[in-house]
């Protein structure tokens, strides 16, 4: 009998790319929903920026960052955050509910890359929206929004890719948890809350009280937003860059591997909805 051959790397890569494309296309069919989400959170964020501007008007030395630095940081944090919004969990939960995950398990693309390809599709669409956000940000932060140097831009971009990898791996791990719990909205809300606080979305972590900062250091979330933003804007010392990137990579790989191990364990036990 002809032995079965595993799909080649090239095939997997081609599958990954085309699945990402189709996901992006799907997401574009729901562009109105995406736009509304973005506009409403963008509006809230503008108000937030205006409040900070007011704070700095009263006291130009309100924090360790200058007014321009602060504005640039907040705009970039918002931009990175909206660029990395992926629907890994919601998509997955919907499919679990309907008992459709079975289909994803029966593809020649491994489950984790199947999910990652879809997440990539999400991010591709987000990237389209990043342009207007950046343009709008210029109104608040002006030239402070530009990368500190060409090197800073490269490091920031690299860091952003790693941030994507971390954000995806966190989602993937949580997806496994929801496999076990059968319904996992609870853990997703918990993650969202922790992310809000500890990623540096609302303020750079240097502004946090000591105790909270210490907690943040033990969590991966700051690597998702604060690290790429600081590298891009040059708020981090260039000498620190290798350490920051290595830290991101370590979190990414660690979470990814953990997710994959949990997935294997889950697959040995999980039960598919009847039908």
């Amino acid at each position, binding site marked *: *009998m002809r*032995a*079965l*051959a*595993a*799909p*080649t790397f090239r*095939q997997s890569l*081609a*599958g990954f790319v*085309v*699945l990402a494309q*189709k996901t992006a*296309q*799907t997401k574009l*069919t*729901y562009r109105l929903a995406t736009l509304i989400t973005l506009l409403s959170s963008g509006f809230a964020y503008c108000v937030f920026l205006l409040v900070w501007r007011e704070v700095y008007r009263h006291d130009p030395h309100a924090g360790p960052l200058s007014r321009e630095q602060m504005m640039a940081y907040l705009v970039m944090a918002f931009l990175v955050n909206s660029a990395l919004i992926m629907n890994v969990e919601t998509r997955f939960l919907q499919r679990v509910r*309907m*008992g*459709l995950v*079975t*289909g994803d*398990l*029966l*593809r*020649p*693309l*491994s489950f984790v890359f199947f999910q990652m390809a879809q997440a990539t599709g999400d991010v591709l669409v987000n990237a389209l929206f990043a342009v207007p956000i950046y343009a709008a940000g210029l109104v608040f932060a002006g030239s402070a929004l530009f990368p500190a140097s060409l090197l800073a831009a490269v490091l920031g971009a690299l860091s952003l890719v790693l941030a994507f990898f971390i954000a995806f791996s966190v989602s993937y791990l949580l997806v496994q948890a929801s496999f076990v719990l059968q319904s996992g909205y609870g853990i997703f809300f918990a993650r969202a809350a922790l992310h809000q606080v500890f990623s540096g979305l609302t303020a750079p972590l240097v502004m946090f009280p000591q105790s909270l900062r210490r907690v943040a250091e033990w969590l991966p979330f700051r690597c998702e937003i604060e690290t790429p933003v600081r590298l891009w804007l040059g708020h981090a010392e260039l000498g620190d860059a290798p350490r920051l990137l290595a830290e991101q990579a370590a979190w990414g790989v660690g979470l990814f591997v953990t997710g994959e191990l949990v997935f294997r364990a889950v*697959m*040995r*036990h999980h*039960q*598919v909805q*009847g*039908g």
Partner: protein
Amino acid sequence: MDTAILAESLGKTYTRRKRADGFWAGLRAYFSFESETVAAVSDLSFRIERGESVGLIGENGAGKSTTVKMLTGILVPTHGRVETLGVVPARERRKLAQSMGVVFGQKPQILWDIPARESFRLLKVMYAVPDDVFRFTYHEAVERLELGDFLDTPVRLLSLGQRMRCDLAASLLHAPAVAFLDEPTIGLDVLVKERVREHLIEMRRRFGTTIVLTTHDLKDITATCERLLVLDRGRLLYDGSREGFEQRFAVGRTLVVALEHEADAPTRRALEAELSSEEVTFVWDTPHRLRVECARSASAPRVTASVLEHLRVADLSVQGAELDAIVTRLYRSGKAAAE
């Protein structure tokens, strides 16, 4: 011949959390880890050769889908061993996926928000389907299953039957060596069912596809499968040829006769006397309607000939020889035995 699927003492026991009625009982159950087990499939052994087409039938809850899930690697068996195309499915899922097509009639696999045509293209790349194979499978599916009118409509807007056809087409695009079809004809109209059967036959003719088909429409089986696996409450009740099944479980046939004229008493007596050597029972529903219940030993041709000779027959039919009737009776007797 090569073995496509091998199952040895295969079993699956589901564990489920004990549920309770009412709020307080429910609350208590929430904090307890009590569970109950359901043996969905037990001690299943069979071997399917490459190129065979096998119908898997059984009542609701008999364990058909559970079996298919174990054969495809979605579920890990609790007992026994399974091999599909020479690999343990749950362990080498990706390898197997490349040569396997699966339809779960209840669960659309195809992407929801984009038109089927684009999903097909996606699958072509994902499965690295060679151009010549794809040209054949794609056209065969589009023509045979008449997908042309809705290939460019997002799948979520399709009717159940249209979506099912796309799903079936999608599962066979890469000309898999083995296809598991769990209720692929659910929700299809009679004509489309016919098309689906033709499609399966054509794919098999062209690629020698091994087919495992689960269905509640036994005409699907009659049209496409030579072999039957019959499950009864998780156990294998029958494994063999379709004809063998019909012979073994058919208890007899009934000749239903509608008469042009009322038959008078002497005519009836003459007929009954002539057939006295056969194991038959005459039931006169009305003076115009006769049922002759023939035991398995009775010769249907002889009975029919006598009836035609003695009576003025307006219409005549034989019932009970079809797979449908046999299976109905089998399920019913199974129920009776269980009670």
